[in-house]
């Protein structure tokens, strides 16, 4: 009455071949249409981001601050506080994913705002865990002479192999 009748079926289902091809069936929403839709939404999102930047942060007064991390062996970043002209304008607490993204070479857009032409003081306070698992807090500052061009500031955290300490710098990039 009974035999190994189901074994062939099961065996076929056990196939681990990386047959990653997925065939579309009749009546399915076409993959091409879906891709076109995604591209359209991306374009619209881009246009709105540009529009938002033009409206809220005009080039003459724009200042953008980024955070980067090179290596990160000597410093485990917890938070960054950004002061412009002694006024707190941004604070950020980092998740593990964000820290990993920084360590892997990503650059975080931390702050975007407006500044009048003239002299400004930009100070960043970094807190985290330093060498020997000690709490670590450092500040880095820059005197910015704002012109009519957009200002790009990088808060760079790097390792100093010689000192076995993290280093914190505020760097002004040429206007894009």
């Amino acid at each position, binding site marked *: 009455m*009974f035999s*190994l009748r*189901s*074994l*062939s079926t*099961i*065996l*076929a*289902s*056990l*196939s*681990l*071949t*990386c047959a*990653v*091809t*997925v*065939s579309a069936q009749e*009546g*399915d*929403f076409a*993959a091409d*249409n*879906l*891709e076109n*839709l*995604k*591209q359209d*939404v*991306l374009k*619209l*999102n*881009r246009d*709105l*981001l*540009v*529009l938002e*930047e*033009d*409206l*809220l942060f005009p080039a003459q007064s724009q200042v*953008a601050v*980024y955070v*980067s991390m090179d*290596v990160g062996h000597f410093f485990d970043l917890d938070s960054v506080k950004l002061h412009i002209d002694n006024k707190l304008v941004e604070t950020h607490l980092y998740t593990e*994913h*964000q820290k990993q*993204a*920084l*360590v*892997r*070479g*990503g*650059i*975080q*857009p931390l702050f975007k705002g407006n500044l009048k032409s003239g002299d400004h003081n930009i100070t960043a306070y970094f807190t985290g865990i330093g060498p020997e698992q000690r709490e670590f807090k450092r500040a880095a500052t820059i005197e910015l002479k704002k012109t009519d061009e957009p200002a*790009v500031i*990088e808060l760079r955290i790097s390792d100093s192999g010689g000192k076995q300490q993290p280093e914190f710098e505020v760097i002004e*990039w040429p206007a*894009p």
Partner: protein
Amino acid sequence: MLFPASTRKSLFRSPLALAIAAALMATPSVYADNAAEVQPAEQSESHKDGSPAQKFQQAQDMRYGSALYHYFQGNSFEALSTLMVSDLRGGIQHHADNADLIRGGISLAFGLEHQAAELFEKQLRKADGEGDQKRLSRYREIAWLKLAELNYRHQNWDTAALQLEKSGAMHKTTLTLNLAIRNGDLQQARQLLNMADLPVAERALGHNNLAAALARAQQFDIAAQDYRRAALLVEQALSRPDMSAEAEEELRILRDKAKIGAGYAMALGGDLNAAAEEFRGVRLDTPWSADALLGLGWTSVNGGNHQQAVDALGYLIRENPLSPQVQEALLALPFSYEQLRRPKLALRAYQNAERKYDQALEDLHNLHSATAHLQFAEINAEADIDLRRYGWLEDATTPALIRINQKYLLQMMQSDRLQLQLAELRDLRHLNRVLEQWQQRLPEFHTLLEEREQRRVDIVRQHDSAQYDQQVQFAEQDLAKLQASLARIEAEQDGLAMLATAGGEEAEYLQTLRDAEALHARLREAGKTGNYQQQTLARARGILQWQASEQYHDNLWQKRKAIAALEQQLSEAARRQRKVARIAAEAPQLNLLAGSVDDAGLRLAQQRNTIERASVAIETQIRDDMRAALVQATERVEQYMAHTRLAIARIQDAAMQGMYDLPPEIEPATTESPPADSDSQDATAKDVTEPVADTDDSAETESEIATEVTL
């Protein structure tokens, strides 16, 4: 049945997801390789788990770095948006040698396969003269490999093979093997597998794939050997001490799958004892243990070891929900009882099966009715980030109705098709959410534009006032006068004139002197003056001339200063005029921005509609697929039900004819005994069939059964 999270994830991670993972992983590795070339000295450092520390190069372009920051967190949409904004703002200044490759990888992660292919092809078109040759060559290889994988997914086997050959990575990927299997050339597949330089998990997977292909070609003995080879590779790898927990779990899954495959191949090849041994090696606390237990059950039935069959099938039925394997076991178990000459137990088991099938049919019917109301998970803002973090690698949220009833829909749940549909649905929901947020912000943009327009109008109006123009005109006249006067004084070295224009006490004295001299001249004409008065006036003039010459340079400097200040004021006025002119010219720009906002509003509404239609289409597909799966499941259960009822009728008939009175009871079977330690993580199917104490205290005789049946 509950399983650890890692096991659950491994279960539901489809081959499609694995392939995409491979594509995604390659992109960071490009980055890592890049860094390794720059700073090879630090390569020897190690992580805690023994793997070499990865070195990464910091991005040299802020926007490019920002895109990577988003991408490394799994936010492909934000990463692509950042790159697209960057294109409009002057593009990526650095990283030109691999920017297309990275963008292609991100596009692939977001399901933009055509765009990814175009970017990989663009990477391949890069001229040899551009950038570092060694790196560029490496990027080309990766681009070819990614194109090959894409074409493989689209079933363009020949193109994929050609591109794979060009990639130079033929022996570093299982794609070569899969292509050979696809072409049915299993001999070549074996050679390729032997030559390939693969990590142990991929090699084991390769052997499993090859074995499955061999089994499909009815070459069961060779297939079994490959399955066993895969299991052996895993055993050897697991003996190494530096393995991470996740890697160990992955290998154990591969071993279980290899053992199940080997068991079925051996069973089909006729070696039932060896097959049973393979099935016993599969861990019990896994979702696929049901396949092993069912295989063990059938192998035992066919090998005549009915007691072992009863133990395996009984355990399978007891410990699992009503999955397809359990449905089949419900029929196989009473058959084993019959073989053990336990008709009463067989009858009860058949009746139990009938009840369960009834229940299953009712469940399936209800599920079929509920399909129309299948609800799909709404996006949770917080959870959404995690869901998208690893792109398609992360399991999409399966609708609760399907998840709860997975015992009937497991095959559908594990299919690439459903996983892809759910991933697309999740992406569409995310896009809709992004557009919804923009829609909410558009009024704010309108307000901002109105404010800017108002400010512009105020400034222009102020500038256009007559009073302001008059002031500027007076200043210009004053300046002209001052400049002419100073030029004359300087030319004539006229100290007294300078004194007069300097103002102050001396200027008053000079004016008084001039008035006195004029009066004296009139009096002299009338003959009313004397020498004393003339001498006094001459002395006063002399003193003032002396003072004028003393103060000449100081006064000259003061005059020049005044002229400079006036010029500065006029220059400032001119600058202000230019600024106002610029602001006045902003009107068309503001109009343009306002037009863009209006246009965006229309596009937002249009695209949200399209997203809605696409979502509905995909949801309908899922519902249709679910109905089809339920119909299939119903047909299967109905077949089992028919067999069961026939068997019940047969036993009752035999009992009525007294045929079951004859044989003596043999050793009673154990049907409900749990294994020695079923909770143990390493418990295997072998534990199910270990000898256990007999708990069947049935004292009923076969004649009693006959009576019961007759009644």
